[in-house]
């Protein structure tokens, strides 16, 4: 009986230590990334095709934790050449607008919006493919292989189909579960729950809001 209690205590101490290390790593490592991950630069979908000489309207919004951010310079770029098409600035609602008169080229364009700042702000919108067609009546140079579903191709995020456990691992886990003392299992559950609650609390407390700094000097 005493040995059993000692084993449980020993395991509990290990679990608490491990949990503490995990808390620390989770909480301290990604504070900055958390802030950036909440900065959203949204470029509204563009038409997949437009005639040369027509106005292509770019619009979207910049938000941080769902709140609009004003006065940020947004640059529209062509992903293929890396060249900026034009800058614009987000208004008091965090909205930005930019009009561009289209120019025909053989290849489709791939447009995205990016924040232009002095700091390293990794904010970039989704990319949209736009084919600029020559004006009606003009001869067209056949465009090489057109990409049909622009969004799905350009924004192809590899999706993992690897799921959960195999029958083998399940049976192994079953065996392990039988071995663990129910009290210890409860303790682990409580600790994991507490860890999750603390992480949620910290992430809510962590403010990614902008800070306004005032500087002065003489010219």
């Amino acid at each position: 009986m005493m040995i059993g209690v000692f084993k449980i205590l020993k395991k509990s101490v290990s679990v608490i230590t491990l949990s503490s290390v995990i808390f620390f790593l989770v909480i301290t490592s990604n504070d900055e990334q958390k802030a950036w991950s909440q900065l959203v630069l949204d470029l509204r979908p563009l038409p997949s095709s437009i005639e040369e000489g027509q106005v292509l309207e770019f619009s979207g919004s910049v938000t941080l934790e769902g709140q609009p951010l004003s006065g940020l310079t947004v640059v529209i770029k062509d992903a293929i050449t890396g060249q900026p098409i034009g800058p614009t600035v987000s208004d008091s609602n965090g909205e930005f607008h930019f009009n561009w008169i289209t120019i025909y080229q053989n290849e489709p364009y791939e447009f995205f919006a990016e924040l232009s700042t002095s700091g390293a702000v990794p904010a970039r919108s989704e990319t949209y493919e736009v084919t600029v067609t020559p004006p009606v009546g003009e001869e067209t140079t056949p465009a090489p292989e057109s990409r049909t579903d622009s969004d799905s191709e350009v924004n192809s995020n590899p999706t993992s189909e690897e799921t959960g456990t195999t029958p083998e691992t399940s049976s192994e886990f079953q065996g392990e579960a039988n071995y663990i003392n129910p009290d210890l299992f409860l303790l682990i559950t409580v600790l994991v729950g507490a860890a999750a609650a603390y992480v949620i609390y910290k992430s809510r407390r962590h403010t990614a809001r902008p800070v306004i700094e005032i500087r002065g000097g003489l010219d």
Partner: protein
Amino acid sequence: MSLDELIPVIKKELFQVLEQTITNKQDVVKLEAVSTTLNWYKEAAEQNMDFSNLSNKIANTIIDNVVEPMVEPLLEDIQLKIENDRAEVRFNTSPFKSELRPYVEFVKKINNADVAKIKIKFQINSDLQIRDIQVKHVEKNTTINFGNLEGFIGISIININTPLADYEDSISLGSKGFSFPLPSVNL
């Protein structure tokens, strides 16, 4: 108390002169740079930031940068006269005119990175004089009654730089004459 310790007293008085001048000019609140800055503070969850708080911050920042170059020549003048006159003496400093161009920059930072800036450049014209300074040397003790700091300060905006544009228009915020007493000290 040394002469340098007069500077905080002068800063406090001139701050009020400057803040009143800025706050009384209601056209300033209509400036796009000011409304954008107020909007930034709102985004930063500083809900209590209004135009009067903002002009307070602007005046503070300007004062921190202009008072020393504005009054140091006056204090040097006093120092010189005290050292040269070893008896009881009463004098004024020479008037000192200055034209300084302080700027105030509001920087929006996200995660310690500057993401946007608004820079307002001012011109401060001043003509200052410390009048009626009385110095008494009694044995090894020197008592100075600094009299009054008198003069005027004129302030105008000469340039505004926002993320969208650069405005070069000069906007006069006004000028204000003043006179306030300075403390007596034993050196």
